[in-house]
């Protein structure tokens, strides 16, 4: 640590410490303010606010959706992960990439496709799926890739020797998989559940379009229509408690099932399982999610877009420009926040500075509506000049997405040995110079990947843009949402198509080039 950037002795301590602390403060202060604000409520009224039966129904609905999505995405992702890693099927890497692409479909676009294609007037002869069923199906099919990617990595990381050892100890192949391999991929399952769970709790677009009353939906209705601020704050707070509960349960379970790979040396590759007569069924199982989550939405969008009135076309360019105008600065700001956080987390000896990185994950975990509301309350009271500005929109977007930039930067930083900086120091470079001449050039790829992820995420983000986009700004996501709410499916189609095609292309390139699949 001695002498590198961010250390006490190096003198460069505050170069990174100050921005990191500012980011941490920006993530924490508005949430604390939200809590204070909620506590301002008259104690007598508090009972009627918190304990109304409506809230109980919201909790029940939210938890039911959580359980439904976790169950359905498990059914989708576990066999897919197994089929694309451990079997003798052809083109496993291509399948894996394609099966990850539904990640590019935002939940509100999925809901839009469901509404536009089914029920009376829809292009598919299916009854309209709304409420719980619809939300579960849509969220499962757009979120399962998170579980799929983690399970795939875990499955290929499991030492196949352990399964063989189980065989020599008298356990058959199927039981060896369940007793030995499955427990080893439980941590990946749990991580996947956490990410999916956070998205479900934070989802706003899907549930509100499909009219399923969860917390996010209720918060927005309170804020947008009724505008009972105290009640909205309380709902946001309850949602935060729910999120906190999810994190605590995950943390508790994780400690119990901690698994470290024991064998050293390079991982042997497990022999591919031959499926024999089940092979056609396996291909069908790979094809089905692809059809439902990617092909059907794309075909439907193209079909609907052809009905789009041509004179609205200039709106397309404008929406794209609005999205990019917010997403570009957001990506740069998030990267600017992520670099110091990641660097200090990896290199600093101060627990405070190392811990700041955790706060970045807070921005990710907090449901965007709660984060947005917290900032609205905070700026209205404390920084009124900021309220309703472009800057606030970008700032909150960056705070929400900073964790997605921290992860790749941190990963890249682990690849740069501290010794390299020490060499630069012995060659007469100061800590700041050593960072920019040695460390930064080596981690720019990770930084670029992080920035790109944030850019795409921000350009299709819905709830924060709905709350915070200043007057006159109507990005792609907001247009899709408001047209769909008015059942103007043809008008929404080109915007939705643009979002899906652009982010699918991006996700595909990223996955393939970074060898994530």
């Amino acid at each position, binding site marked *: 640590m001695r002498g590198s950037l961010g250390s006490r002795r190096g003198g460069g301590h505050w170069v990174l410490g100050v921005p990191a602390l500012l980011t941490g403060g920006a993530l924490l202060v508005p949430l604390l303010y939200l809590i204070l604000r909620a506590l301002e409520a008259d104690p007598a009224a508090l009972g009627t606010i918190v304990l109304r039966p409506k809230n109980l129904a919201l909790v029940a609905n939210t938890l039911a959706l959580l359980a439904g999505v976790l169950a359905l995405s498990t059914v989708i992702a576990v066999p897919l992960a197994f089929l694309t890693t451990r079997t003798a099927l052809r083109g496993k890497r291509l399948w894996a990439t394609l099966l990850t692409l539904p990640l590019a479909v935002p939940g509100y676009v999925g809901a839009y496709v469901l509404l536009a294609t089914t029920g009376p007037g829809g292009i598919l002869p299916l009854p309209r799926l709304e409420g719980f069923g619809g939300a579960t199906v849509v969220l499962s099919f757009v979120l399962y890739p998170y579980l799929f990617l983690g399970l795939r990595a875990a499955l290929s990381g499991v*030492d196949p*020797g*352990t399964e*063989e*050892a*189980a*065989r*020599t*100890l*008298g*356990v*058959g*192949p199927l039981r060896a998989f369940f*007793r*030995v391999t499955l*427990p*080893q991929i*439980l941590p990946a399952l749990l991580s996947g559940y956490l990410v999916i769970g956070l998205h479900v709790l934070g989802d706003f677009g899907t549930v509100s379009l499909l009219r399923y009353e969860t917390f996010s939906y209720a918060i927005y209705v309170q804020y947008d229509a009724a505008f009972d601020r105290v009640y909205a704050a309380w709902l946001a707070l309850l949602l935060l408690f729910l999120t906190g509960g999810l994190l605590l349960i995950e943390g508790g379970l994780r400690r119990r*099932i*901690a*698994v*470290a*790979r*024991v*064998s*050293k*040396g390079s991982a042997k590759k497990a022999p591919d399982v031959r499926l024999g007569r089940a092979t056609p069924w396996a291909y069908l199982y790979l094809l089905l999610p692809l059809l439902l989550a990617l092909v059907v939405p794309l075909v439907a969008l193209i079909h609907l877009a052809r009905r789009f009135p041509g004179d609205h076309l200039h709106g397309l360019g404008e929406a794209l420009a609005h999205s990019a105008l917010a997403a570009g600065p957001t990506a740069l700001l998030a990267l600017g926040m992520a670099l110091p956080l990641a660097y200090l987390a990896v290199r600093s000896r101060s627990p405070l500075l190392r811990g700041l990185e955790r706060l970045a994950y807070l921005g990710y975990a907090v449901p965007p509506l709660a984060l947005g509301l917290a900032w609205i309350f905070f700026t209205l009271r404390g920084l009124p000049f900021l309220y309703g500005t472009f800057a606030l929109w970008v700032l909150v977007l960056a705070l929400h997405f900073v964790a997605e930039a921290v992860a790749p930067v941190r990963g890249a930083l682990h690849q740069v040995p501290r010794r390299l900086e020490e060499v630069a120091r012995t060659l007469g470079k100061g800590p700041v110079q050593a960072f920019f001449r040695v460390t930064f050039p080596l981690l720019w790829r990770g930084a670029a990947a992080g920035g790109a992820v944030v850019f795409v995420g921000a350009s299709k983000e819905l709830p924060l843009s709905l709350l915070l986009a200043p007057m006159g700004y109507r990005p792609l996501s907001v247009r899709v949402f408001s047209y769909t709410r008015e059942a103007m499916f043809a008008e929404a189609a080109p915007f939705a198509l643009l979002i899906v095609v652009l982010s699918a292309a991006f996700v595909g390139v990223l996955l393939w080039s970074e060898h994530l699949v």
Partner: protein
Amino acid sequence: MERTPRLVLEGISKGFGRTQVLEGVDLVVFPQEIVAILGPSGCGKTTLLRVVAGLETPEEGRVSLDGTDISAWPPEKRGIGFVFQDYALFPHLTVWGNVAFGLRGRDRWERARRALERVGMGGFLQRRPGELSGGEQQRVALARALAPEPPLLLLDEPFSSLDAELRASTRAEVRQILKETRTTALLVTHDQEEALSFADKLGVMREGRIEQVGPPEEVYLRPKTPFVARFLGRANLLSGEGCGRYAETVLGRVPVTEPVQGPVVVALRPEALRLRPPQGEGGPLGQVVAREFKGHDLTYRVCLPSVAEDVVVQEGPESPFRVGEWVRVAVAGAGVPLRATPHPGVRPSFLGSRGPGVARLGT
């Protein structure tokens, strides 16, 4: 020792794609015997173990356990224990859970505890494999394989991931445990010292075939092929003419361990040669080209004008000769006549013409 074999391998052949890994391997292991298969890496020894365990299916040949043909049985039915090279401990289970994994019945935890106590790991029951050192993991892996009291235990390079100091002591302990539990064991290794000291019976393997099987002393002292002679330790290979009890070579008359006639290759261990001052009698003149002092002995490499390969001689630590000095090389022991290598394409002539005269592999 009973004479009903525990394990019989007959004509085992196995290939992966175009490469033939095992070519007609025969082997017999008797109960309570510890057999080591020694060979360079890539000679097929690990594949051989995996075939015995049922983890690989051979194309040809038969595996019999206690007289029963088990060739078609899956690994879980065979009940053969396996200690993997990297141990393959279950990372999600405790040490205790790992050992109890293969046991059945109410007393499985008690039996697992006893198995762990036997290998000196009784105090580590609740630990996770990730918290153990390499040597400790090795003991747990051994306990896990031994706990079900398998009729046969297979060990795949079990000591190779331990550091040198730990290796020798662990080896002795494991051998003692195997003997105490009267376990029949088949071990594969590329370490000559390990094979010689660990086994009751030694097989030397090369390119998918077993070239020689016998007690370690016999294989070391009476190698049958040039490969075995060199792989088991340093050997000078001299071509010459057999004349009954001795052979005429460039070093003069070399007594041989068995009568020979006609052209022959004789293997002479470095300790069977002595250096003498050039003024005296005995042996041809040569020049010392290298001198390696190793504490307990001294190894010289001597260049003889009439021989393409340097000759290696081992002397006591007080031997006075220096590099560049002229010396006489005298024969002080018996040589072993070798049969020609059975492998097509490798002619015995390579012995005298190319390459270093001494092979010291796997040290």
